[in-house]
């Protein structure tokens, strides 16, 4: 069987890639994608821990399903806000949203 640590390393790498995407990319859609990657890394973590440590209770699975639900809700609101920004300013780049600063 594949050891638990492999899953955790995969999740950590995925999380790092997602975080890098959020911090480094300018396009807001790419930033939202980065956030999704981070949430998926969490899901891998949760499922791996559940399967290897406490397969008899379902907490890990339930947690994962909740993360799905929330991620979907968050992206729905996020895309709505992207559209409302696009309609006003015709841009999807985070660094062009600079009306509010210091």
């Amino acid at each position, binding site marked *: 069987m594949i050891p638990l640590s492999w899953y955790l390393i995969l999740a950590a790498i995925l999380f790092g890639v997602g975080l890098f995407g*959020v911090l480094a990319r300018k396009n807001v859609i790419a930033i939202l994608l980065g*956030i999704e990657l981070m949430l998926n890394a969490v899901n891998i973590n949760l499922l791996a821990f559940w399967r290897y440590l406490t397969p008899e209770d379902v907490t*890990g699975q339930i*947690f994962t399903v909740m993360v799905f639900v*929330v991620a979907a809700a968050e992206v729905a609101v996020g895309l709505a*806000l992207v559209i409302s920004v696009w309609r006003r*300013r015709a841009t999807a780049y985070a660094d062009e*949203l600079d009306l*509010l600063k210091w």
Partner: protein
Amino acid sequence: MEILAILPEISLVVFAAILIIIDLRLPKGRKELLAYITFAGLALIFVLAILFSRPADGGDPAIWFGMLRHDLLGFTFRLVFLAGAALTSLLAVEWDSISKRGEFYILLVFSTLGMNLMASAGNLVMLFLAIETASIPLYAMAGSMKEDDKSTEAGFKYLLFGAMTSAVMLYGFSLMYGFSGTANIYALAEAFTSVPSTPLFASLVLVLVGFGFKISMFPLQFWAPDVYEGAPTPVTGFLSTASKAAGFAVLARVLLAVFPLADWQIILAVLSAVTMTLGNLVALWQKNIKRMLAYSSIAHAGYILMALAAGTEFGVNSMLYYIITYLLTNLAAFGFVIVYYHQAGSDEIESYAGMSRRNAWLAFGMLFTFLSLGGIPPLGGFFAKVLVFSAAIDAGLVWLAVIGVLNAVIGLYYYLNVLKVVYLKRQPGDEIPMRINPVHGIVLVVCVIGVVLMGTLMAPWFRLTAEAARSIF
């Protein structure tokens, strides 16, 4: 009864559904009634909560399979959120782009539901769900002025930073679950005794990122000024009070229940000192009153963190007292900003020149509110600050209390600066009397009286917060 314990939350869901129907049935010209209906509903739920949901002494706080904790601390916080939401719905009256739209009030109710659950969550799954239920409506509310460039930008930035920090927090949750095999917050501490301290510390830092974002703690305070400035002012008021209070409710419960004090006390103390100093220093330069209040609210988060860093029962007590005072004071402060914006169409501090000549009562109320924010006796802000500083000294954090006192002096400067403009500066046209919407007037009077009561008749409030703090130790 377990069902009575969550009566306020059930009522909030039902009330949100009723609001959707009312919004559909109301004719176009009568939509302004929605604010009053929302207020009435939230006030009713507030009364129901006091009558039926007060936790009994000695009962088992874990309810619904440990998903929720039914203790006095959670109960007090729930009342704080309900009161904040009710007052916010009245402050939204006349704000054209939001007050006539049912969805604004529905989002407000759902966000309050999330905060209520945050304050009493006893399980990581519940906690995560509650935080998102509170946050996602707030993203939409901050961006709800679709015709306004600043509002859409504010909503969008709030969502990006909020979603990112909550993903980081969630990674921390998944590690906490992995180290212990349980998601029950109160079972975690026991399981953690056998975990080496480095991974534990990592999960603490990850979790602090998410909570720190909610309370605008350094280094996660950068979103607050942008979002506060861009969001519709009633939403800003709600964000800076109820939403921040919810963050502190969660922070207090999780830190005290899960992690050993030695791990986080010094981190929190240092962050508290940096947060308040940064907030106060940057606030000095602000020209826009909403931005100034945003930095002031960062500074206040620093003071509240100081109480939490004490890690004692008295610390939690003074934290709660500070939060209640701050809720009343800051809602009043944003109330004045709203009232004046309707009149002058500007949030620049310069435009407040000559306000005392236009309406002496309004200026007088503003004087009370800003002096309370600055911590002048006999107002609530003073007593709350005394409590917070003495909690820090009790816990041996004398250096932190000294920094806090110095900060209070810096803070006073920019609050007095606004009052100077209001009372001493003049501008053409400042002899025209100002009209105040009576509803706003009532909210402001209630808040200002509350601020004065918190500073003069403190015994009943103090008893309440002391009991609430005792319930989690």
